[in-house]
């Protein structure tokens, strides 16, 4: 019989809190002897079974399929069931376990996921068919491999909310739908069977898309490599095409693009005028003056780069679309 794998002492610092009962959250320390490959979830279940039966955890499949055990592990959004303790211990010397962020705590590591599901429901995550164009009864509705390829990543989502927990835009602005809801929106927007593409894109509200910071923390934390930040980028490009540059976010992206066409470098002042409009610019003036006193170059138009005509020709070749209004 082979010897059991060597174990190491693993110190845990676990968030404990029951709103309504505890005055404030506290961190409780536990130490276990564990083999380095032990999943965090297994460790937590051992703590509950052997040391402290009052520890609340949400989990189910233990196999990174059900998406139940997302939590903050040393400040990162992770599924506990697929996070081995060894590497965390090596990097941090201990393992700090906290509930997911951006959702209210029910108890200890269990959160109330309603903010996440509310945003998800809002994007109507199901195929929408046009009643005027019913599908033939019993007929299949096939897709080509190329069509499936466009959204093959997004159906992998297991709705664990790790991205929602990691998202700084959700943290500071509850209006933002969050990465997963937008990845789902993308999935139905490019699904050839869905008949509400235009409507979906037109209905995206100002706060909905352009609050994404493209910080890619969602993509980093996603256990299924859905890459929400990249799909949100795709949605932005599609939204400009359908909605036009009609709101602050799309205007800024659109006019930034236009800005480089002549001269190749960013003209900061011109962009500010175009993004904010005259009224908005006046409102921003005091801040602008405050900054320009220290940084006078901002006022100047940059010199055109050498070969600015090349940049223009690249635009002609790759950005032939009419300017949306």
């Amino acid at each position, binding site marked *: 019989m082979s010897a059991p794998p060597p174990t190491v002492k693993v110190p845990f610092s676990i968030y404990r809190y029951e709103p309504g009962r505890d005055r404030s959250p506290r961190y409780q320390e536990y130490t276990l002897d564990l083999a380095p490959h032990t999943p965090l979830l297994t460790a937590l279940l051992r703590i509950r079974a052997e040391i402290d039966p009052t520890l609340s955890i949400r989990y189910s499949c233990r196999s990174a399929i059900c998406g139940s055990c997302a939590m903050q592990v040393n400040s990162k959004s992770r599924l506990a069931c697929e996070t081995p303790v060894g590497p965390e211990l090596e990097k941090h010397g201990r393992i700090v376990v906290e509930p997911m962020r951006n959702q209210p705590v029910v108890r200890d590591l269990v959160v109330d996921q309603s903010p996440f599901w509310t945003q998800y429901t809002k994007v109507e995550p199901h195929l929408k068919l046009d009643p005027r164009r019913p599908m033939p009864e019993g007929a299949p509705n096939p897709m080509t491999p190329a069509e499936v390829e466009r959204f093959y990543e997004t159906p992998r989502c297991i709705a664990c909310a790790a991205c929602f927990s990691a998202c700084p835009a959700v943290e500071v602005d509850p209006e933002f739908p969050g990465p997963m809801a937008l990845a789902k929106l993308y999935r139905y927007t490019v699904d050839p069977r869905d008949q509400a593409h235009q409507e979906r894109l037109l209905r995206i509200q100002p706060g909905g898309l352009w609050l994404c910071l493209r910080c890619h923390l969602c993509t980093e934390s996603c256990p299924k490599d859905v890459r929400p930040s990249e799909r949100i980028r795709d949605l932005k490009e599609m939204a400009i095409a359908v909605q036009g540059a009609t709101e602050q976010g799309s205007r800024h992206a659109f006019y930034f693009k236009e800005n480089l066409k002549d001269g190749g470098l960013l003209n*900061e002042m011109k962009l500010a005028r175009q993004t904010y409009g005259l009224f908005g610019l006046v409102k921003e003036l005091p801040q602008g003056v405050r900054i320009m006193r220290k940084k006078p170059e901002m006022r*100047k138009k940059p010199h055109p780069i050498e070969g600015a005509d090349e940049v223009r020709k690249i635009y002609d070749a790759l950005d032939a679309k009419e300017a949306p209004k």
Partner: protein
Amino acid sequence: MKLAYYPGCVAQESGKELDLATRWVCRALGIELVPFPAFSCCGSGFVDEANEVLNIGINARNLAIAEKAGLDLLTICSTCTGMLNLANVRMTDPQVRARVDAALKPLGIEYRGTVKVKHLLQVLTQDVGLEAIRAKVRRPLAGLQVGAFYGCHLLRPADEMRSESGEEPQSFEELLKVLGATPVYYRGRVMCCGFPIQFVKGPTASRLAGRQIQDAKSHGADAMATPCPLCHISLDAYQNRAEKEVGQRLDLPVFHLPQVVGLALGATPAELGLKRHLVPTDSALAKIRAPSPA
């Protein structure tokens, strides 16, 4: 060491002090910077949002300029690094490559994909090396607690950026230690500064910046330091707004990466353009001593 110098728009305009400090540090470390007046803006992530392929096209042109000169590219902005790297990654997709090649070819431009995009932080920590820098320190930043603030696009997506880590980088803190400073570890160091939405919803952007500054400060930072001039705008030029959003006076100086390196190597505040900051750096400078003679 000789590198194609890609300063980016901000360092040539409102963030001129970053360019100044970069040139000073590179001179001190024997890094030759080759300027190319033909470089265009990287698109700053906004062009990518408006038209992905166009963004790759203009950056492939930038990369082709360096390739033709046989040089790797030095960037001093996290977002420039991200966008130029993204072009490198996306150009490996045959369909994207075909479209971009078709746009560049009539202009006599070809990009074969051989240029490495290196941010100054990577050049300092990987190519120059921490020991070589340690040997040149004339004014150890002893007594100064610094919160590194990386900037998203230097790190993420980690697989595409081939960065040290998307969520737990170490290089900036290791560099700070070599400079004699004490790095401050806080959650916000890998978070977003809010810059991308400064023009979409200013208060939300500033609330985010405010939280990261608060986080650094509450962990004991005397100053922050960032390798990204866009983060610098959010954290320094807009710190007054961040203060308003979080309802707290912050008053935390924010250095550009080459400014902290320059200070430790003996540069004067004037040589590093410190007077151009909106938040005065005096409180941080008061903590460090005069440089020892060379």
